[in-house]
């Protein structure tokens, strides 16, 4: 159910796009209205979610310290794992966001022979995640070509780099293949590791299927069905210049691709995909660890009922005097 439901949801989307443009001729709906609505939802949704998080304060300085604290001058501080300045925090966050530092730490714990717990390095998840996110990013950047005329100069560089294998015409972009391979790995991993399968929700499979669908249709269009790229660019330029047009002759597969992408955008703010924004707001990572050096202010700090020394002495005065412990009131 957790797998089938999102699977059929994505299949339905594919069929919807095909039937929509082939059967019902709803090109304008799928080519213009849905993408606009999706991008709108994405932007508003992401802003809303981030603002909502940001509205909740960070009352305490709760960095997870993963290295030596700043202390005596002759002890070397680990500035990236236990930051004590904004610069250190930027370094820590950069490692986290750009290189997935914490995931790189991953180890696998296993009980051998019912007696020994052993821990081995396990970098596959890190590797697949890095491959997935970076290839997705490059694929996304490559799409700028469809939204800018003339294409910016760096795109040429990116494409040269991406197509370095020099295979086929059109030239094979390696990132497209890596993206599909990595997302497939992430899906299979979720399916085959029993513990991960056990914790997985429909909400975990849905974006995977969406992205598999997006990558597959993209590859189909570029290498196999040879979609009318001029027509596509006419449409995308129309979208970006706010004067939408529906060109003739763009195949249904493009509309499938576009609908899946639109779904991903629209779904994004309501889902775990918001980890993209959330990672920046994670208090265990973006705070300094030197909380004894600088006082953190809790905006909702309020006075509490305490048991005062006077109350304490009142109760134990005789015992204290007997024991020769000084008291305030004789």
């Amino acid at each position, binding site marked *: 159910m*957790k797998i089938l439901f999102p699977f059929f949801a994505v299949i339905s989307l594919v069929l919807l796009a095909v039937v929509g443009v082939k059967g019902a001729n709803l090109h304008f709906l799928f080519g213009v209205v849905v993408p606009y609505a999706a991008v709108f939802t994405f932007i508003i949704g992401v802003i809303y979610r981030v603002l909502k*998080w*940001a509205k*909740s*304060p960070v*009352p*305490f300085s*709760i*960095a*997870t*310290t993963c*290295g*030596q*604290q700043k*202390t*005596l001058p002759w*002890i070397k501080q680990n500035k990236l794992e236990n930051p004590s300045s904004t610069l250190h925090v930027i370094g820590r966050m950069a490692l*986290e966001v750009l290189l997935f530092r*914490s995931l790189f*730490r*991953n180890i696998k*714990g296993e*009980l051998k022979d019912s*007696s*020994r*717990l052993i821990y081995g390095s396990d970098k596959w*998840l890190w590797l697949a995640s890095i491959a997935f996110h970076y290839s997705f990013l490059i694929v996304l950047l490559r799409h700028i070509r469809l939204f800018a005329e003339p294409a910016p100069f760096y795109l040429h560089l990116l494409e040269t780099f991406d197509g370095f294998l020099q295979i086929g015409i059109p030239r094979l972009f390696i990132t497209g293949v890596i993206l599909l391979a990595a997302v497939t790995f992430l899906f299979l991993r979720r399916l085959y590791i029993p513990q991960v*399968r*056990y*914790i*997985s*929700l429909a*909400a975990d499979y849905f974006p995977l299927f969406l992205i598999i669908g997006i990558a597959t249709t993209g590859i189909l269009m570029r290498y196999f069905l040879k979609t009318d790229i001029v027509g596509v660019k006419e449409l995308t330029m129309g979208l970006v210049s706010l004067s939408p047009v529906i060109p003739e002759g763009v195949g249904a597969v493009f509309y499938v691709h576009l609908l899946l992408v639109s779904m991903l955008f629209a779904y994004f703010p*309501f889902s*775990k995909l*918001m*980890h993209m924004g*959330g990672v920046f*707001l*994670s*208090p*265990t*990572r973006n705070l300094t*660890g*030197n*909380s*004894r050096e600088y*006082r953190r*202010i*809790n905006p909702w700090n309020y006075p509490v*009922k*305490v*048991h005062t*020394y006077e109350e*304490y*002495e009142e109760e134990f005065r005789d*015992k*204290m005097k007997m024991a020769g*412990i*000084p008291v305030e009131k004789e």
Partner: protein
Amino acid sequence: MAKFTAKPAELLKIDFKTPKTDWMDTPVEIREHMYCHPAKAKDLETVGFPNIHEWRPADENWNLPENWKETVINGIKERLQKYRSFHVFMDICVRCGACADKCHFYLGTGDPKNMPVLRAELLRSVYRKYFTTGGKIFGKTAGARELTEDVLKELWYYYYQCTECRRCSVFCPYGIDQAEITMIGRELTNLLGLQLGWIAGPVANCFIKGNHLGLEPHTIKSNIEMMLDDIETITGVRINPTFNRKGAEILFVTPSGDLFAMPGIYTAMGYLMLFHELGLDYTWSTYASEGGNFGFFTSNEMAKRLNSKIYAEAKRLGVKWILGGECGHMWRVLHQYMDTWNGPADFLEVPKSPITGTVFENAKSLKMIHVIEFAADLIKHGKLKLDPSRNDHLKVTFHDSCNVSRGMGMFEEPRYVIKNICNHFYEMPENTIREKTFCCGSGTGLNASENMELRMRGGLPRANAVKYVRDQHGVNMLANICAIDRATLSAVMDYWVPGVAVAGIHELIGNALVMKGEKERTTDLRGEPLPRKEGA
């Protein structure tokens, strides 16, 4: 309740297979020896906790208050607005599973609901149902579920099978910290009067009497005097510490566990000997006689209430700064919470060692330093006369306490001290120390006796790493800087790794410290004969 008698070999038959049924459809089974007794009403009354009622975890009916569901939902809502950590952590988990095999309770039980991700999902599913559009509309498909009594019991059972050690948060790509989620989950149970006896008792004691163990002022003094007698017997030196003395330079606060039971008292003897030898102008307090904070395991507010005594007492006595003893969660609270709660301590001065002149800039706002930082500085400046050979009968390994590691980052200081007072020091495997250290399995108020199976299971990963160095190097002493470690790892060692004892670092300092006017020592602080010196 029957006594816990399972042998280690039985506990080691851990089944890591996932159940056939989905976790939402697998009802919680509240198992004997895995949970603690409920709190006594009088303890909850002492501190004014709400919804005090009779209930037993194993019973079908927990006699929950009429509006319990509303209380929990409102409790979640309030905390989402108060804590960005909680709010973000409820939303961004991608369930990658990197945290799963990092939890000592998961490794020791194989119960999938002890994977940090799933422990969090227990609460997240409720959050989705009542606070997210997707959860409201799609229900179970969106990973949302109704809050029922069974769900509440499940939350209670598993949130008291988490010691807030933060190991999962080291490995999480977004830094999601189950400790934060557990703390809030436990606050919710506290709102319903579902507190543990082993937590509520120390909290009430600490509130009224100043320490978890409920030691009254004269008892604190007489306990310390007994230690002084022992020190005199062993070293020939008579020490005269002071109590509640106004005008002392330094207030010393340590967990009360150090004043009561073995092996904690040996650590306290070490403090007494060190401070005496230095001629330190310091005082003990019977009012602020607890460094630890079991309030931290009930609610943020209660933790603040207990913590307030430390600054209040420092102010009353007019000391310049505060020195803190060896403890784990105590230092998480001091390092990350105390200044925010009860500061600013502008009536104190930046801690400055009167012996070396070192100014502890790293504590310039809190005005409180760790006794291990203090000791490391002394040794570095050559201020202590040490004879490490008096620890030659010990082969020592060091257990990083979770909170001091992942909630502070003190890794080098204790190692520096140990290397200067012991000739035989061996590290456990690298994936089990420092920021990757394993919990003792009994923290956050789970150090009771009725939950012994849970404690032994939770302690397994730590014990297993100790076993490795015992077998490889003949290690027979597990050094640490945490009162709960000292109290609980002894049991864990006896169960899993017989032959390894547990000690605070200051006990080992006490052994090695050559005091002015001392007699030829023949035993260590435990009364064990010292190894014969060559040529003696």
